[in-house]
């Protein structure tokens, strides 16, 4: 209580400054008068009495100063004083202030932008009630145990595979048997085709159990959320939409509640809108806009697949812990329940190189319970590396900006030498001066930080648009929450101190005698050394960025030049996928042929074909295993194609024959066309026509090889060409999943329009989706490398500009300072050309030093992007050399102007101004 009282006491001067000062003055005055009187009484003369009293009292100002130290918060007083002074100083030199603030804004803004991404992807929790109490379930199993209808990914901490999806029965079992959880809910994420307000589009959607919103604690911004009543079979079809979808589609109109939207071909009524900011708990970047009850799922699945619903692993399960319960308790209590429901639903899929599992003795999967405050997190972990890399890049830029501003401050400090000398002579402590200069630099940094915040919002969106995480465009909200603001504040403060401290210390280290004795002499060498060091730092960091950019640009070129084995130009790709929710009477695959013929007959189309899995997409990566002679099994890629495939893609057939209509008949003997790599790997020779292999070890070698095609790349651009096998498009397929490939000549737009028209004529209800060219599809494979190349180039150029401007400023200033010296040189006979060469030589030595140091740094730094490079070594001398030359060239240009100015100095004028 006492300290609180003391604090209040100390805060009074803030508000009652005048009153307190006046009172103290009066008190001291009274003291003086009383002392004078006492002296008078003692017999002194009036003047002597007063003198004695004054002497005894001491200096009024000193007393007041020490009183103030006790009375108020002295540091606060000084701070306010310093701030006002700093503002005045900065306003006096608007040019300097503008340049400094701009440099800092760019540096701090870039960092904040990246951090807001880091925040959104790695740090931020779901905007729900008590996210710390949420639990997310996943399970761990051997690699060869496959969840039907789902997928498993390698677990980073063990050599097993993990999967976040479960069976529907598991969800129900958990709900019935979870003593430590107050809520258990599940969801299935799916893209939905929604017709709202007259137009259809694909949106991120999900099917959620009835207690989904309650479990999360998400309230409705309008209408209501999904309840358990909606999640009953036969209940009315309702949907809850996200706030962002509501704003985008319905303009935030409250009358949207009650409207009917058509999802796929099922009409649903919109009953509510969730609170802003909540976009589901799916993988980061997947925003769930439309939520339907889990009970509606059967209406979106083809009739013959209905029995798969309970047997597929596709539900993500989360729960909310009761107070006091732990994750371990939850896991232990539910593991048995999980394993009971899992039994019999895991397929054993033998893989080459992986020890086989005895079907009679399948090991049970293990349940894991992890904190669910961030929702599904596998993608977050994946993006971590990319984010940290980008963070490193922008930190380098900030350091360059700091070095720049430090030099500017140093120059300014030198100009204000006289002012500092006077203040020091008057008795100001050096610490006080340094503190004041630091206030100026922190103020600059704060201004830069505020401007940077504005830049950052726009910057984060621009960064996302570059697709630094791969080809998918992530929909991430980057809100300005306390973490981002705290980060910006911390960076601004740290920056202000970092670039401000050294110049402040240097500027106040003055030899007062020298200063006042006509100190137009050149200032100490230490100041120049510092400025030079800063310049070297800038050049070095710029080099690192540009080397990174150069390596990545070359990587991109290498990607483009890879021989993919087929003609990738002028190929239009699209899908006639039957999306979830599209259910017309099923068309047998025989419809595909007329479509293909129609397309091939279009003007400007040189060929059309279709395939089951799209090349260069994830679909073709999950290939198959070929069993050869029952002793060798090789992992191979496979695709099911039409007989016009090879012709359309222009892949030469080296031996044997193509598929013919006979092969496409139902029940026909299995055939395949393989590539050279397949032949060499499985048979050791290219003479494989007529040989056989099998897809299933139990069924023997049922497939006959009828043709050999030239090696072509269907998925990866790096490494050896993998073995690949083509088989005829499965006639027995009753679904319409097909990827079409059309080779066109002329304009892509015309071909696309023609294709759309042709398909609409055949069947108006078929949606043509995912339209792109083959070149674009392949480019997606290295979207991440491309975005990093863009980032490095952009920031490298920015750093180069900053460094060039800084160099120009530095050399100009030095020429100015050395005017006298140069005058003497020229008076003694130096030619202007010699002076020019001297300035250039000195400056470029500096730059060269920076280049060398930067080169050394790059050798270490390129380690971080080594995984992105392709076809170019991380220490490629050509790239390093080119970047070094570029830097030297730019530096020469930057130094040229001041150097020429030096050469033009008239010796008489220079010496006279000394």
């Amino acid at each position, binding site marked *: 209580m006492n300290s609180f009282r003391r604090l209040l006491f100390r805060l009074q001067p803030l508000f009652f400054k005048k009153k307190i000062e006046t009172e103290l003055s009066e*008190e001291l005055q*009274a*003291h003086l*008068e*009383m002392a004078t009187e006492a002296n008078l009484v003692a017999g002194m003369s009036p003047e002597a009495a007063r003198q004695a009293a004054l002497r005894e009292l001491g200096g009024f100002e*000193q007393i007041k100063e020490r009183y103030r130290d*006790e009375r108020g918060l002295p540091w606060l007083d000084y701070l306010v004083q310093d701030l006002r002074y700093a503002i005045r100083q900065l306003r006096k030199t608007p040019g300097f202030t503008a340049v400094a603030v701009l440099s800092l804004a760019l540096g701090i803004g870039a960092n904040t932008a990246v951090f807001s991404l880091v925040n959104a992807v790695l740090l931020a929790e779901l905007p729900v009630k008590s996210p710390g109490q949420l639990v997310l379930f996943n399970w761990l199993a051997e690699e060869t145990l496959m969840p039907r209808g789902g997928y498993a990914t390698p677990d980073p901490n063990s050599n097993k595979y993990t999967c976040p999806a479960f069976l529907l029965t598991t969800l129900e079992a958990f709900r019935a048997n979870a003593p430590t959880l107050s809520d258990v809910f599940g969801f299935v994420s799916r893209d939905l085709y929604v017709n709202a307000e007259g137009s259809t589009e694909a949106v991120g959607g999900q099917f959620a159990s009835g207690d989904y919103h309650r479990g999360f604690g998400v309230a409705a911004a309008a209408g209501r959320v999904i309840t358990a009543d909606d999640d009953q079979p036969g209940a009315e079809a309702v949907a809850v939409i996200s706030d962002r979808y509501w704003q985008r589609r319905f303009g935030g109109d409250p009358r949207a509640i009650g409207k009917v939207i058509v999802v796929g071909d099922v009409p649903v009524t919109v009953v509510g809108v969730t609170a802003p900011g909540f976009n589901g708990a799916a993988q980061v970047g997947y925003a769930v806009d439309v939520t339907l009850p889990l009970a509606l799922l059967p209406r979106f699945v083809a009739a013959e697949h209905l029995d798969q619903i309970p047997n597929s692993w596709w539900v993500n399960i989360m729960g909310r812990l009761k107070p006091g319960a732990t994750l371990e308790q939850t896991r232990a209590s539910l593991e048995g329940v999980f394993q009971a429901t899992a039994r019999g639903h895991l397929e054993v899929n033998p893989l080459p190189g992986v020890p086989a599992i005895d079907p009679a003795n399948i090991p049970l999967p293990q349940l894991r319970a992890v904190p669910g405050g961030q929702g599904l997190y596998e993608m977050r972990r994946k993006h971590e590396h990319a984010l940290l890399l980008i963070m490193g890049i922008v930190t380098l830029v900030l350091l360059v900006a700091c070095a720049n501003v430090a030099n500017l401050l140093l120059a300014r400090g030198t100009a204000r030498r006289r002012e500092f000398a006077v203040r020091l002579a008057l008795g100001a402590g050096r610490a006080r001066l340094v503190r004041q200069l630091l206030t100026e630099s922190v103020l600059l940094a704060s201004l830069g930080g505020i401007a940077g915040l504005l830049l950052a919002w726009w910057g984060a969106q621009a960064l996302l648009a570059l697709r630094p995480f791969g080809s998918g465009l992530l929909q991430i909200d980057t809100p300005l929450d306390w973490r981002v603001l705290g980060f910006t504040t911390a960076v601004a403060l740290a920056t202000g101190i970092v670039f401000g401290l050294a110049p402040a210390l240097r500027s106040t280290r003055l030899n007062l005698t020298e200063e006042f004795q006509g100190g137009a002499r050149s200032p100490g060498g230490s100041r120049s050394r510092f400025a030079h060091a800063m310049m070297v730092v800038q050049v070095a960091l710029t080099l690192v960025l540009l080397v990174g950019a150069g390596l990545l640009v070359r990587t991109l070129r290498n990607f483009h030049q890879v021989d993919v084995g087929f003609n990738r130009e002028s190929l239009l790709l699209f899908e006639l996928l039957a999306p979830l929710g599209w259910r017309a009477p099923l068309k047998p695959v025989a419809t595909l042929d007329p479509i293909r013929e129609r397309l091939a007959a279009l003007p400007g189309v040189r060929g059309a074909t279709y395939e089951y899995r799209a090349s260069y997409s994830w679909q073709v990566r999950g290939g198959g295993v070929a069993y050869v002679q029952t002793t060798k099994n090789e992992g191979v890629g496979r695709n099911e194609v039409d007989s016009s495939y090879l012709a359309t893609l222009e892949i030469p057939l080296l031996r044997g024959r193509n598929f013919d209509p006979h092969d496409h008949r139902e029940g026909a003997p299995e055939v395949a066309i393989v590539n050279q790599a397949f032949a060499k790997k499985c048979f050791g020779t290219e003479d494989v026509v007529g040989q056989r292999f099998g897809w299933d070890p139990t069924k023997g070698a049922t497939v006959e090889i009828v043709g050999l095609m030239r090696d072509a790349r269907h998925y990866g651009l790096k490494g050896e060409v993998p073995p690949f096998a083509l088989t005829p498009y499965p006639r027995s397929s009753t679904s319409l999943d097909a990827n079409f490939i059309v080779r066109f000549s002329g304009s892509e737009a015309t071909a696309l329009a023609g294709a759309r028209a042709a398909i609409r004529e055949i069947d108006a209800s078929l949606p043509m989706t995912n339209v792109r060219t083959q070149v674009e599809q392949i480019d997606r494979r290295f979207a991440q490398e491309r975005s990093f190349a863009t980032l490095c180039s952009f920031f490298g150029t920015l750093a180069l500009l900053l460094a060039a401007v800084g160099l120009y400023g530095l050399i100009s200033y030095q020429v100015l300072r050395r005017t006298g010296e140069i005058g003497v040189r020229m008076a003694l006979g130096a030619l202007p050309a010699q002076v020019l060469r001297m300035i250039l030589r000195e400056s470029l030595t500096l730059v060269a030093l920076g280049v060398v140091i930067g080169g050394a740094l790059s050798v270490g730094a390129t380690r971080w992007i080594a995984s992105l490079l392709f076809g170019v070594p991380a220490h490629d001398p050509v790239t390093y050399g080119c970047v070094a030359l570029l830097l030297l060239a730019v530096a020469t240009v930057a130094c040229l102007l001041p150097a020429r100015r030096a050469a033009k100095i008239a010796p008489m004028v220079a010496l006279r101004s000394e």
Partner: protein
Amino acid sequence: MTNEKSELLQGTLDMLILKAIERDAMHGFGLSQRLREMSRDVFQVEMGSLYPALCRLEAQGWIKGAWGVSDANRKARYYSLTAAGRKQFQAETARWETLSSTINLMLKAT
């Protein structure tokens, strides 16, 4: 007193001020006179130490300052001891006694 602002001297000055105004409220000048008188002219407190000390004591709530009128009809600020101040004074006196007797003991040791 010298100009050193050692902790010991600061605390001791506080204690002595409390003693000086134990009986009567005093203003700054009167206080300095009283301190000189009490120490038989050995201690002459600098105003630069006295006034900050008064401020400190007031902040702690051990003395209270109020404007009043002196005998010579002059406006002056009078400081008086509060109840808490009285208690503090007793505590500090006790501490000082212990301290000084211990030091004396140590100085007498061989």
